[in-house]
């Protein structure tokens, strides 16, 4: 087992909550793009406990939702979590409030990519892999992780 196993270390630079930041429109934009209601989340943590990739993430899925509720755009958009999520819908299936968390992740990926920076480009692929991976993997990764 590698040293990456186990929960991600807490990432907690102090955040200052002001009315301007919380009401900056970030949460509303996520609601609009995802079709989900961020305030429905009551932080039960079911999404994070079922997530097969939680151990690879810097911010757990429920943490992402909480930060969206609080308007913390930069912390969310710069999180590695967006690019580790494999869109497997486990969280979506298990959310007791019916939030499609995968759709929220998609919306956040779109907002991050709208800044114009690809997270994964053709130059980053291992050529040996590129020659073997079935096409849905190649198409899927570029559709999700690049503009």
């Amino acid at each position, binding site marked *: 087992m*590698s040293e*990456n*196993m186990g929960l991600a270390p807490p990432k907690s630079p102090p955040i200052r909550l002001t009315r301007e930041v919380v009401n900056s429109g970030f949460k509303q934009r996520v609601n609009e*793009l*995802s*079709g989900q209601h961020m305030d429905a989340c009551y932080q039960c943590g079911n999404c994070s406990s079922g997530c*097969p*990739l939680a*151990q*690879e993430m810097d911010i757990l899925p429920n943490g992402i939702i909480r930060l969206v509720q609080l308007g913390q755009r930069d912390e969310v958009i710069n999180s590695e979590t967006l*690019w*580790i999520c*494999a*869109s*497997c*819908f*486990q969280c*979506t*299936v*298990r959310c007791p409030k019916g939030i*499609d968390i*995968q*759709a929220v992740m*998609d*919306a956040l*990926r*779109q907002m991050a990519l709208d800044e114009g920076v690809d*997270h*994964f480009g053709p130059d*980053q*692929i*291992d050529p040996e*892999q*590129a020659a*073997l*991976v*079935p*096409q*849905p*993997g*190649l*198409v*899927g*990764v570029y*559709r*999700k*992780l690049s503009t």
Partner: protein
Amino acid sequence: MAKIAYYPGCALNERSSHLDRSARDATVRLGFELDELDTWTCCGAVPPVSKERVMNLIAPSRILKNVRDSGRDILITICDFCYNTLKRTNFSIKTDDITRKRVNAFLADDTPEREYLEKDDTLWEDYAGEVRVIHLMEYLRDELGYEKITENLKRPLKGLKIAPYYGCVMLRPQNEIQLDDPENPSIIEDFITALDAQPVKYPYRTECCGSYLSVSSPDASTRLCYRILTSARNSGADAIVVSCPLCFYNLDSRQKAITEAYSDFKPLPIFYFTQLLSVALGVEYGRQGFEKHYVDVTPVLDKIDISTGKGDE
């Protein structure tokens, strides 16, 4: 022989051609033919990330509209990604008026000139989600009936312990896919039973294998696949059965990296469900594309007792 419209998708056309071939071999023996669409494009592999990106719905919508226009109402797919993308696109078109209008506006706009020349008297008819997108395994279960498979077994897989692997997009999101219970499915177990083999219970059958992360974060996928494979093996499985080309790649080819990373790991053969089906229906081993597998499947094949069946035809 009944012909059912069939969308192979890009993987089955090339890198996973053994999935395509074994499916065609098997279905012919079950009395129907997979009739590949005359023209088709990539479906896009994943649905668009938001409703704003309606352009990403155009390719799958065009495929579905062509099926409808050719007078057919069922479309079979096998790749789980194609199934998920086509079915969810259809769901959006059917349930969301705005999406339907926007998609049809795009489709009407890019209709090639020749179609106006050839059939200028046909009126444009909006695509409204008329086609039913079904997975081959769903067709076998609901339209053909698994009992029909059991009746036609030439080489029953008696004694084989097979672990089903569902992965993610075959079942989820459940409100749109509605194939089976997303947490406690049974469609593959029942399929295994129909082949006279024994389904193995293990905890990770619906846990993600890493999907496309295999390309961008291969180590993450290696860890996930290790967990799935060891769990299946510890539960007594001789092999795992999958239906998705990407699950197959992750669980099969990735065993090379897993063997390097984990000293306790023992390889486990992976099969497409269509390979087991066509083997059980008597298609010769030589047509299954086993040479494309990273993990040797012969230990499993050796367990199939050909003395009980009628062997190769």
